């Protein structure tokens, strides 16, 4: 068996999961959709993160009933060797998409604002190989990298947000949400589906986290931590830019830097900041690719995870290239498709596990 999994502790587990949720919630947001009717992302995104925890905890409960240490073995136990791979494929696809989404945004920002005129493939030639290498190194390395970089990323995000404090104006938060409650609920629900795959990845790597129960605890703590951080960052962004401006801004957290840092000679750190954040996106992407590969290998009863890592890395490259080389509208279309039908990814294992769950309950 070569699953490159090892075992990691709570600090690594929480770091990697929170980092992935934060990357998806802050760096991978589609601005035209998120700020379409106003700005309530500082509430909707944290709420989405916490709501997305529920199906994951349900899966964890189901895993505990079957005594499974990871999602792949749980699915094979509950669904058998034929249905399990089929049910796992949507989650695998969703994880690859979650890996690609922040990388697409970062590549776009690097292309437009950091390396003016440099081609997308040139930028991706630095990003994708590193992501693949980290995913190939396995869960232990990913967890440790996350612990190392989480502190730097948190500091740089906090510095960027705090440096924009002189520009904060509360009136920019108005209107809260012109689409009404229905629109808010719809947005929150659709965002929830984006956060389920990264959280479900913890159950995929459950054995690396010393069991399903620890995976559940890690999911809970990391969702809470990421929700808090995302709330603070989105609030800072909302206080700086009105929603009409935001809907046209790609990665507004980076634009915040220009307000204050560019004016000061000593603090021209905007480019350093984005590079630090890119580390987070790369680690998150590697984590998602590893989890997808682990699930794929586990459900297909493969004894080696590396072929799956290679195949899904190719899928990641294709997705990112598709995202950056086509116009952004197509990415938005993919986004909305995932948000509409993405629930199938996490729902399939959970729903198909219900009979087993209920049978055990009766026993």
């Amino acid at each position, binding site marked *: 068996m070569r699953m490159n999994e090892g075992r990691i502790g709570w600090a690594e587990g929480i770091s990697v999961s929170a980092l992935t949720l934060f990357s998806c919630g802050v760096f991978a947001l589609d601005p035209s959709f998120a700020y379409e009717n106003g700005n309530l992302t500082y509430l909707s995104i944290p709420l989405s993160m916490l709501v997305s925890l529920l199906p994951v905890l349900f899966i964890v409960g189901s895993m505990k009933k079957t005594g499974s240490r990871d999602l792949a073995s749980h699915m094979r136990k509950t669904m058998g060797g034929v249905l399990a791979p089929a049910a796992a494929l949507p989650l695998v696809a969703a994880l690859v998409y979650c890996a690609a989404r922040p990388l697409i945004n970062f590549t776009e920002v690097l292309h437009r604002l950091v390396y003016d005129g440099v081609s997308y493939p040139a930028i991706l030639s630095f990003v994708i190989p*590193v992501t693949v290498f980290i995913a190939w190194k396995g869960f232990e390395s990913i967890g440790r990298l996350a612990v190392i970089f989480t502190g730097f990323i948190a500091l740089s995000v906090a510095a960027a947000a705090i440096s924009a404090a002189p520009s904060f104006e509360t009136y920019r938060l108005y209107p809260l949400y012109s689409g009404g409650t229905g629109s808010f609920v719809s947005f929150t629900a659709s965002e929830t589906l984006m956060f389920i795959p990264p959280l479900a990845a913890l159950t995929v790597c459950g054995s690396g986290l010393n069991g399903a129960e620890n995976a559940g605890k890690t999911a809970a703590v990391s969702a809470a931590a990421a929700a808090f951080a995302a709330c603070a960052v989105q609030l800072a962004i909302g206080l700086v830019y009105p929603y009409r401006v935001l809907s046209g801004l790609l990665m507004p957290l980076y634009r915040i830097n220009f307000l204050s840092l560019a004016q000061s000679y000593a603090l021209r750190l905007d480019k350093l900041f984005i590079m630090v954040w890119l580390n987070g996106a790369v680690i998150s992407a590697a984590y998602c690719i590893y989890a997808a590969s682990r699930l794929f290998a586990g459900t297909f009863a493969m004894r080696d995870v590396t072929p799956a890592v290679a195949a899904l890395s190719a899928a990641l490259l294709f997705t990112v290239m598709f995202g950056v080389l086509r116009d952004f509208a197509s990415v938005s279309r993919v986004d909305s498709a995932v948000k509409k039908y993405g629930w199938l990814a996490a729902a399939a294992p959970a729903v198909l596990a219900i009979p087993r769950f209920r049978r055990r309950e009766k026993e």
Partner: protein
Amino acid sequence: MTFSDRIKGGIFAFDKGDDRFELNETESGEPPVFGKRRPVGAADTRADIPERIPRSIEKLQKELERRFSSDVDHDLIMRRFLIAGRTPALVVFMNGMADDAKVNEFLLRPLIRLEGTDTDPKALLNGAVEIAESATERDLSLALDSVLGGMTAVFIEGQRECILSETRGFEKRAVEKAENEQVVRGPKEGFTESLRTNITLIRRILCVPDLVVRQRASGGRNNVKLAVIWRRGVTDERLLAEVERRLDGVDLAAVTSSGMLEQMTEDCPLSPIPQMLSTERPDRAALHVMRGRVCIILDGCPQALILPVTFFTLMDSPEDIYMRRPLGTVLRVVRFTGAVVSVLLPGYFLALALYHQGVLSTEVLSTVIASRRMVFEPIGVEMLILLLIFQMIREAGQRVPGSIGQAIGIIGGLVMGQAAVTANLASSVVLIIVAASGLGNFCVPDYPTQIAASYLRLAIVIAAWLGGLLGIVAAALLAVAHAAGLKSFGVPFLAPFAPRTFRTKPLVLRGPLSGQAADDELNTAYDRRIRRREQ
């Protein structure tokens, strides 16, 4: 249970606190991408079948003359004599390795002048042999190995056992200053090439009964011995088992240096990062043994290997704890800063100069442009050439004798640098960057780590040349990912930072001398006892 306890035990506590990461590889591991698995148990196969000692002295002497080519090689001294004037015996020792006077005075004379009839080796050992370190041996191969190591064997007619006495008396270097790990404050002496002397140097510092020194074959066919040193009851038993397993796997034509052992037993031999600490200071080795690590000393090599190690162990200097805490803290901060500057500064400068000029102020930018006005090669090439020249000066300085080496350093640093700037071969700004980076590199206390850092610096410079800050991020992430996945005898290389352990002392700053007696990442028995008591 209070609410806070429930929070602590329910959410923040995991099932298996002690086993959060694997400390030892207890299996031979996964097959590597290239090459075969490391062979296990190849070294001691010869010792499995004991070779009987012939009862006839005549026959034995002929056998020894054949084995040691006595027709051309006269180094093996074989002298026949009569014990108590009656029983024929043969004393065997290696000329130059054993002390003749000791053999004559305390072995031959008492046996020849013996009064009595009992020629049983054990009885002779008790009643005649006047050398304290003596024993009997039934295996001829082991007896001859000991003779080759400087001991003297006495074979007696009609006996299947021989007497082995410690008579080593070969020439060896005296205990001198540790040349490569000098400190201003603290012990000065260093290891020598003699295994016995080195063990004594450690025993003199660690006067504890739980210190265990196990001598065993090194695995080389040259029959050199090594000593594995640890503390019973403190060092993790699984770690010891893993050390023994890996040492069993060593099978080389000759083991002449601890560096060879290191390569044969480390987790990832292809990595540029060292996974063991090589030291020539007994005090440093003793301190690590005291904390629960294992020390390996090879006979004939003045460096001891310490394992397992982490990144922070490699960045430690013995002086850190010999100085007062504030001074030690400053030293460590300077050292870590130096290491970071050494690795990142040239690449960072290159990235800013080539891709991100907006980060630099107009004044800095114009200074850089002015200094490079007449320099003909691109800045990337200039940086690489200067780094290469710096490495060459360093290599040259190390290979030539002391005073000339220093002169080369001065000539290289001052004359060549100044000449290069005057001749417009290099710009002064790049020269200063390379010099600062080189100085930072020297702050790293461990020599193999210095070399690894200089390779990483080169990789980062190339990456920065190709992709600016993005290149640096890519190269640094690759390096950190590699280090994060690395293990030294099962202990994660970046522990106790990643993964986190229960360590309470600071990592970069110097902590108090009192407190944790053992490093937590080593999972020592000492720590387990403390934790159990706390629970």
